[in-house]
């Protein structure tokens, strides 16, 4: 196995759980590094705990006391003599303070610098920097809006519809869409109140609101030596309430000219932020093919496997290699084929209510062109405390048509008993003519669910013949 004698670190603590912890452990193994899992008392039987070389219990089930418990996690690295930490996604992955403490404790944080994380975490500062770097940003206020009258002035410049967003926020909270000046006052006050409640900070800003945009992101990788590699785009427009449910690469909508322009913008954005390691630059693309920077995620994304599949490139391995100061392989100049990821969640497929429980039977799909990233096994528990992701199924094929058919096949052979999953939802999406046409936007899921409900109602009201 590849074990150079002098390496910057040899043992990686994986500060996460579920499939991403399993994913990171795999990449470490491939590189000949040993691994330490952390777990909450609810996760003592989890796959990542079984797979790692060592495991340390860091707290009670609630994430705040365990997977977000910085002192216990740093201490776990110290007692296990782990000299690096991979944060995965979620939890502490975009916590600049955590990255700083790692550095102070002499532990390599596998990710960008605390400064970069902090900069990109402040949406207003990030936007200002991007504007400076010549990256198109969503038209909106410069910095935060302090008063209603200032807001109305800015609004008349930007035009309607617009959206009021919390400065410190994310995930849909503290957001208000305004379609006319009459609605502004009310929406502004509500947004401020919500922002204060949710994030302890009532600052808000205003942006143009797009109707039927696409959510497109560019994968970047800063090699630590000043170069930024890009890996094309992922289309993440299939979302429900800002939760991505299915991603694909390449986007059926993006032309090669647009891809090239967006990649250049992503490189400019990354260079402006002195970006090191894997990151994602998120854009909104309007129907006229104009793109606008939304934010940069300073971590590995859930949907990274679709990029890995068409570039045949191990992004998590590269993350670790960058942190090790080792050279990383060059990606091929152009990707091959098409890849789709379905996030199979432990949720009711139509109400999306979480469905934690024990997996009493599990049959995972396989064969050519099918990859599964999961921490699930028959007998495993999906606890109610964390996100409801059960498995990511990734299909790869020569073209989009074959890729969708392969995913349909894979999902139809997958069996999960004991809990509800979103498998039926994904199967219907993959058969939906709008989805198959590739002409969809971020409002697809909403419309798809409306269409479905209407069809069911019509069916029910039809007289029996």
């Amino acid at each position, binding site marked *: 196995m590849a074990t150079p004698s002098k390496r910057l670190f040899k043992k990686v603590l994986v500060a996460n759980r579920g499939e991403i912890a399993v994913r990171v452990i795999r990449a470490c193994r491939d590189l000949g590094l040993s691994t330490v899992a952390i777990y909450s*008392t609810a996760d*003592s*039987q989890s796959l990542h*705990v*079984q*797979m*790692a*070389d*060592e*495991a*340390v*219990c*860091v*707290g*009670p089930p609630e994430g705040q006391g*365990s997977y977000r418990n910085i*002192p*216990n*996690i*740093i*201490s*776990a690295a*110290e*007692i*296990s003599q782990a000299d690096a930490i991979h944060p995965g996604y979620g939890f502490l992955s975009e916590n600049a303070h955590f990255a700083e403490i790692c550095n102070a*404790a002499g532990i390599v944080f596998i990710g960008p610098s605390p400064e970069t994380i902090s900069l990109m975490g402040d949406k207003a500062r990030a936007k200002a920097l991007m504007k400076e770097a010549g990256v198109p940003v969503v038209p909106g206020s410069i910095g935060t809006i302090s008063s209603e009258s200032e807001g109305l002035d800015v609004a008349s410049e930007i035009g309607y519809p617009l959206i009021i967003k919390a400065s410190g926020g994310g995930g849909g909270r503290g957001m208000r869409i305004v379609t006319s000046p009459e609605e502004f006052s009310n929406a502004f006050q509500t947004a401020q109140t919500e922002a204060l409640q949710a994030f302890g900070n009532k600052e808000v800003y205003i942006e143009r609101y797009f109707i039927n945009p696409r959510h497109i992101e560019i994968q970047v990788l800063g090699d630590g030596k000043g170069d930024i590699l890009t890996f094309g785009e992922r289309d993440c427009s299939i979302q429900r309430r800002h939760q991505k449910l299915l991603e694909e690469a390449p986007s059926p909508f993006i032309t090669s000219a647009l891809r090239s322009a967006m990649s250049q913008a992503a490189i400019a954005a990354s260079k402006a932020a002195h970006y090191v390691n894997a990151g994602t630059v998120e854009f909104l693309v309007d129907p006229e093919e104009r793109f606008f920077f939304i934010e940069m995620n300073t971590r590995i994304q859930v949907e990274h496997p679709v990029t890995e599949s068409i570039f045949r490139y191990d992004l998590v391995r590269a993350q670790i290699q960058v942190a090790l100061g080792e050279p990383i392989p060059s990606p091929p100049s152009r990707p091959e084929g098409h890849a789709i990821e379905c996030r199979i969640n432990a949720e009711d497929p139509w109400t999306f209510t979480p469905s934690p429980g*024990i997996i*009493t039977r599990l049959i995972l799909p396989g064969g050519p062109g099918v990859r599964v990233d999961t921490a699930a096994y*028959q*007998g495993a528990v999906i606890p109610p405390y964390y996100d409801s992701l059960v498995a990511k199924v990734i299909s790869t094929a020569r073209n989009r048509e074959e890729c969708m058919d392969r995913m349909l096949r894979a999902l139809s052979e997958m069996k999960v008993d004991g809990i509800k999953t979103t498998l039926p939802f994904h199967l219907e999406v993959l058969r939906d003519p709008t989805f198959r046409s590739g002409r969809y936007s971020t409002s697809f899921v909403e419309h798809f669910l409306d269409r479905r409900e209407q069809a069911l109602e019509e069916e029910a009201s039809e007289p029996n013949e």
Partner: protein
Amino acid sequence: MNNEDIREILDLVREHNLLSFEFERNGARIRIQRSPFQSTGGTFSEPGERSLTGGETPVSVSPQSIRPESVRVITSPIVGTFYRSSAPDAPPYAEVGSVVTKGQILCIIEAMKLMNEIESEIEGTVRAFLVENGQPVEYGTPLIEIDTKAEEAS
């Protein structure tokens, strides 16, 4: 052995969630295999699952002995290194047999260069130390047994 016996055995097999069960009367042979599913805790203890503190799952029951009900176990509230005294040359905060009061310091857990003093939540007599001085502990590791009755008696 009659049908009634068999029925009873089958009910037990189901109740205990067994995958297989063997039994012999003369020479008294028995062999049980349990299902790895929906049991309560611990079927999946694998070689790969090496916990740093000796593979104990973080429950506040020590597996080595059955404790009288008067005994309470102090578990570690944090991750770190367990010390019985404030410095290598200092005397231990408590020893087996020590009578301790509520709020009295029992030990220290060092984490991120900080010494965290662990106080007793109860009154009683120290019955046992479950971790050696200088050993790493995880969240929930049983540290010290305190006998609440022994204190009353003494």
